[in-house]
């Protein structure tokens, strides 16, 4: 789960993609996995044969069968239905938190890179402080102090994502600041604010896009990990991490299904998002080299 340190961020300006390249992306394995997960989430009510929240005391901890494809959990709830519904919670929380982090990180990074001076110095120091925090423990501390709920979970994960994008956008902005078109825009009478918004930020979006997928992979695992220890969602609410925690106590007795399937879903989502991000990065690097 550790983040691999980023190499140089390539500067690639945005271009409208051709249909051929688009088709190649649409049919690569991670995109297919993500599409299946999304379909499962959207059509959960149609696909699930049981209500994800209704316990069935007579059917506790049933192994997978034709009736319950993924078996049942300690409350007798159908794991297949719950895994489907959980996709909604997990992907929403992960994607939303990364988007919020980006929304704050991009302007801050662009300002730090463009203005330089004490603004840059202060923001860089702040990111250093943020990165000294152990993320899971920090989330625990904040939620212990401010309240244990989903909204706070999203906000904390967003907060933890800000430094990543701040640093990335800053590093892309630095060479842009010296470029001719920025000089031209300044000569044309743009104020700093409009110049950053109109000319700097759009050109930082391509690398941000490939990092977005990697961050989401990490966020999915963070959400599951934090709810595994009881942060964010309350127990009956379908969520992968809390479902794994329900199954965790039964694994030593050889009942593998309550923990296996939600974990498999988490793994697939994280894997697909990470793989997609890596593919995007590689294609960006190729593009940057020519």
């Amino acid at each position, binding site marked *: *789960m*550790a*983040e*691999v*340190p980023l*190499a140089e961020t390539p500067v690639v300006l945005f271009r409208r993609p051709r249909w051929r390249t688009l088709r190649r992306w649409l049919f690569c394995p991670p995109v297919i996995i993500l599409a299946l997960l999304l379909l499962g989430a959207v059509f959960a009510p149609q696909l699930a044969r049981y209500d994800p929240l209704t316990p069935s005391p007579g059917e506790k901890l049933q192994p997978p069968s034709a009736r319950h494809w993924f078996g049942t959990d300690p409350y007798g709830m159908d794991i297949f239905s719950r895994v489907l519904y959980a996709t909604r919670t997990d992907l929403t929380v992960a994607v939303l938190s990364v988007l919020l982090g980006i929304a704050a990180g991009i302007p801050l990074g662009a300002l730090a890179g463009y203005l330089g001076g004490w603004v840059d110095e202060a923001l860089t*120091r*702040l990111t*250093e*402080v*943020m990165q*000294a*925090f*152990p*993320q*899971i*423990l*920090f989330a*625990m*501390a*904040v*939620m*212990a*102090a*401010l309240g244990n709920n989903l909204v706070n979970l999203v906000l904390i994960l967003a907060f933890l994502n800000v430094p990543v994008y701040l640093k990335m956008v800053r590093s892309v902005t630095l060479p842009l600041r010296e470029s001719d078109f920025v000089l031209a825009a300044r000569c044309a009478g743009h104020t700093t604010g409009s110049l950053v918004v109109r000319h700097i930020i759009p050109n930082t979006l391509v690398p941000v896009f490939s990092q977005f997928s990697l961050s989401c*992979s990490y966020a999915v*695992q963070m959400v*599951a*990990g934090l709810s*595994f*220890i*009881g*942060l964010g969602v309350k127990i009956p609410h379908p969520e992968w*991490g809390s479902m*794994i925690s329900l*199954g*965790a106590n039964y*694994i*030593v*007795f*050889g009942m*593998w299904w309550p*923990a*296996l399937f939600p*974990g498999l879903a*988490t*793994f697939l989502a*994280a*894997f697909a998002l*990470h*793989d997609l991000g890596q593919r995007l990065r590689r294609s960006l690097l190729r593009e940057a080299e020519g």
Partner: protein
Amino acid sequence: MRSPWLGPLLYILRRAAMIFLVLLGVCTVTFIVTRLLGNPVYLLVGQQANKEILDNMIHQMGLDRPLYEQYLRYLWAVARGDLGMSRYTFRPVLEDIRLRLPATFELVTAAMWLIVFGGVPLGVLAAARPRGIIARFAQFLSQLGVSMPSFWVGLLLIYFFFFRLHWFPAPLGRLADQIAAPPRVTGLLLVDSLLARDHVAFRSALGHLVLPAVTLALGSVPATLQITRTTLLQVLASDYIRTARAYGMPARAIYFRYALKNVVVPLITVLAMTFGYLMSGTVLVETVFAWPGLGLYAVDAMNHFDYEPIVGVVLLSALFYALAYLVADLVSFAVDPRIRAQ
């Protein structure tokens, strides 16, 4: 004339000052989160306490004093190691941390060993034969490592190696129940049992350590592996390695005398980062294996609505992280003449 010690000394002082600033920032953030955004009184007495009790508590905790005074008091308390009291162990947080730190330290150290002695050779071999079977295995391992949730991996390992194969003991703590712990010297069971020449305890401690250490290492080994692989690939593609090859220098000399040296500095930085990460990553792994370390302490505290132990563990982890970076800087400084020249 300049003393030869002046340069390194100034460098160390500058790095130490940076670390100090980072730690001050960390304390400030925890102060803001716990005292400004959250209300510690509610956390301590619960929402339903009456006005009188609340006012009493507020006065007792000094929350009616001016903010800057509260802040300075907080910093002073942290600097003295006063991290508050735990409300469910009824001991000072620092005392609890001192009791539990060795367990986490032992686990993290074991995981670091696996990462260094597994990840680095794998990365080197993967770079030496980029299309070979080892390179593919390394790639596969990295993919799994970054996308498998560690706590889930731990559960799968427990299922196979405890329930199916019986290779390892039940995932309940550091030592089997029926075995007496060796006399506490360092708190690290492996070391203490060796000192006491207690082979039974040593075997049990080692057996309990393997699965959590592997679980913890798997998530963090990709970073080490990849930095070794990519740095080495870059170095091997460089002009001076090509020249060395053209001179007919044996491959072993090229690798060990020239190429691997360049991997050391980025590798040390990544290892410091990994160490800092593991201090946080142990929370989940310790929960899965009922490992009585700092992570489990924080989780227990959270379940008892006790926030001071969590903040204490956060501060300690940040300290470890900062120290790891300081050590990484100093080692890089000692190893790399290019940094010294600056």
